[in-house]
């Protein structure tokens, strides 16, 4: 039964969702609504599971003195610091309001740290672009040209440089053309491929062919 019940649940929910998409009326619409409520509740529990798992993995790392265990200690301390301040020292359910201790930590610690981590990406992108965009082949040259036009055409300096040209062949116009036509076509092809993959995986799950999510073979 440990395998059969999840398989039946998956098949039932999957079939109901498919039917209710095409026939959003009773009884399918209301059953779908019921399932959606259940999923929202399960998703809320999943957050707690994720938090507890983070603590468990970090505690294990510290206990076994694994490589970089100190960072795991920082993770646990930060976790409890923000949780305690959020729960007990930030006006209860108003903890997200401007001026609370939670808000202070969010703005002055979490916010700049997150932005810094993401900003570092710009430097790596610059370095990687320097090495990757070489006209070694026909395909690489195409990529290089697209990068050139889009990078300059998407910032005002591009139009300053190409300002002497007619409006429809300025860098911004070329960048817009690349984004709207070849780029969109490529994106569509990828989306259709992903969509077909999702459909086949969903059917395999609903029909019980794909069972790896049960943790077995």
């Amino acid at each position, binding site marked *: 039964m440990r395998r059969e019940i999840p398989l039946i649940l998956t098949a039932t929910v999957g079939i109901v969702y498919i039917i209710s998409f095409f026939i959003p009326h009773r009884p399918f619409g209301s059953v779908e609504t019921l399932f959606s409520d259940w999923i929202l509740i399960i998703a809320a529990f999943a957050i707690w599971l994720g938090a507890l798992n983070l603590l468990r993995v970090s505690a294990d790392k510290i206990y076994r003195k694994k490589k970089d265990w100190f960072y795991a200690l920082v993770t646990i301390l930060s976790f409890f610091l923000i949780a305690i301040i959020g729960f007990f020292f930030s006006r209860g359910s*108003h903890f997200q*309001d401007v001026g609370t201790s939670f808000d202070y930590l969010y*703005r002055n610690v979490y916010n700049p740290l997150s932005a810094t981590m993401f900003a570092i990406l710009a430097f790596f992108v610059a370095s990687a672009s320097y090495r990757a*965009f070489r006209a070694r082949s026909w395909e690489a040259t195409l990529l290089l040209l697209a990068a050139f036009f889009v990078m300059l055409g998407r910032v005002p300096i591009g139009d300053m440089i190409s300002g002497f040209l007619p409006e429809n062949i300025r860098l911004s116009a070329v960048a817009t053309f690349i984004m*709207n036509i070849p*780029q969109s076509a490529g*994106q569509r092809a990828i*989306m259709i491929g992903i969509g077909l993959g999702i459909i086949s995986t969903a059917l395999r799950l609903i029909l019980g062919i794909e069972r790896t999510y049960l943790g077995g073979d």
Partner: protein
Amino acid sequence: MNFFDKLMKIDRRIIFLFVAAAVILPFFLSIHQKILISPEVQGLYDAFESLPPGSKIMISYDYDPASAPELQPMAVTAMKYCFTKGLKVIILGLWPQGSIQANMAIESALEDPRVKEKNPQYGKDWVNLGYMSGNELVIQRMGTDIPVTFPRDYQGNPVEDLPLMQGIKNFSNVDFIFNLSAGYPGTQEWVQFAADRFHAKLGAGNTAVQAPGMYPYLRAGQLVGLLGGMKGASEFEKLTDFEGKGTKFMLSQSFAHAIIIIFIIIGNLAYFISRGVKKK
């Protein structure tokens, strides 16, 4: 190894230094850049403009501080515009940090004298429904019943007590949805569920990395408009006449892009010259 070989293998820290200079120096310069409006930003602005005062807009803040430098200027401008135009704003977040980012955007918007003049009030002019876990399922559930999906606002007040939420049942009672997104769940999910299934009118603001993936939706009319990265933010600021951080930081972005292009040109010149020297 000749000079050009060395140039091709330049220490990445030198590139980092140039990029840092390109980002920081423009803060001290006062160069005015002409910002041209792209069709996708114009489309979004036109959608906002077509709404009469009193219309109800839903803004979903689906990002965290990592993407705030690009998306927060859009959020602040959108809030300023809505408040001055008398649009009623329903805020929510499919990312846990979303509702806090919204509060920060509102705080910035309220500092503007034109917004202060209108004196927008919580509950009447805007509400913040907070974060709800469940990703796209939250959107789908809102399609049938918003008050059931969000029974309380971010402070724990029952939504039926908020004047703005009176008469709001599902997306058919919302005039426009504006999604600010940095990934999953985000614009793609809003298109698939709110726009496609429940026929909601949808516009979006995305990070520059994510925006190219949204062009097929834009071309198909599933999105009425799109703000892509800081460039999109600066164009929106120009259209709405609320010049802010998007416009201010565009100079840094212009310089950074120019530096990268210069390095790419140098790298390619070195590559071809080095290859020519070796052939000889």
